């Protein structure tokens, strides 16, 4: 196995509130204003999968497999066209 390991940035669910407050996104999350960029489902603390910087916005992807798969494919081709 190669020594080179891809780095995965993570946030622990117990620290999610502090993390999102800094990004000014905790209130919108609580109000149900954030939607999954792939399927449009409302993002909650339970189904939050990935937080993605996209241009001047921060978008979210839910933990559904299909959405994570789509996000990965979109990441490969660049995230420019991903917007909320």
């Amino acid at each position, binding site marked *: *196995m*190669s020594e*080179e*390991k*891809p*780095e*995965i*940035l*993570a*946030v*622990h*669910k*117990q*620290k*999610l509130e*502090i*993390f999102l*407050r*800094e*990004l*000014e996104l905790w209130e919108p999350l609580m109000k149900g204003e954030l939607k999954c960029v792939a399927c449009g489902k409302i993002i909650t603390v339970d189904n*939050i*999968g*990935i*937080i*993605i*910087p996209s*241009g*001047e916005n*921060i978008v979210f992807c839910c*933990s*559904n*497999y*299909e959405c*994570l*798969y789509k996000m*990965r494919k979109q*990441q490969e081709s660049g995230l420019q066209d991903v917007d909320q």
Partner: protein
Amino acid sequence: MSINKWIIIITVIVVSFIGLVWYFGLLGVVTSVFWSLLLLVITNLDRVADITASSYKWGRKVNFWFEKNAVEKRLEVSIGIASKKVNQETGVDLLPHGIDIKWDVPQKRDAFLERGKMVVCLEPSDNEERNLARATMLYVQEDLIAPSQRFINTTVMKSLCFAVARKMLMLDRKLHALKCLNTEFIEPEIEKIPQVRQYVSGMDNLDKQGFLTRILLREFSQLDAKLSPALTDTRSRTETKALTRMLKEFVEREQRELVPLSFKGSVFRVHLMPVAKIKTFDIANFVKAASYSHTDNIDTIYVIARGLNVGLAKLVVSEIEKAKLYLKNTDWEYNTVGRKKGQLRTYIAEMHKV
């Protein structure tokens, strides 16, 4: 670790214990205990890493540092060990990288946007099954024969990721995570694309015979070398589907049922050569079959045998080599579970056209 290795380690421990006690007396007992521990750690690094990863959970109520490490190390160690096992099966790096989890710190919106890196949300350690299922799935999606993925049919590739993620969790004996993978990822996908069920169950059957990594994934892993720099290839997408079906039919066939053994595509040209003695055994028939494959421009022959036929298969391989038709590139001998006879020795030889 194999039984033979354990016998060697225990012998070394016992012999060194007797020797040290005889020579140093009480001091020898102490030295022997440390020496034995050191030996056990060095020979079981993966197991030690696994125990260490689990041990962080004990302190999670005391300090959040333990909780973070419990989550991080469990994922890194479990995925690292399982991917190493998958790679060891074939001797090819099908999953070449491990994972390295870094905890992100809260930062202002502008700094987050400027850095431009996505952040994954991880569950607490008391929900490690869900974390592991999710992380394994994402890791496999990212790392499994990555350069060749673009040449593989999308449904086949998705099913392959599911099958390999299942395999990794089974190798690691993470059965709760496996259950979570099935309910959270695989079942919803099957509802959308019913074909996925057929492929995943077919790939599970291929894996039971040892063909998933040694034949299917090895063939697929060569696609990048064969077709690069093309961005993708319509023929290869069609053929990856057809080759998967052919192998599935082969492993799911009933006894004496006739199924296709050759795949003559433009990207894959493969011949499966099962060797078995039914009533009589004539090695000339196998050499003749290899000669037909040679004429048909078949690139790779897989000579396959189980149980008592393994010896015959090795003979067939050497006769084909003598005829200068194909040369053995590599071979594997391993245990599988037979339909009736319990554990069976299984053999595969991969032969390339001369």
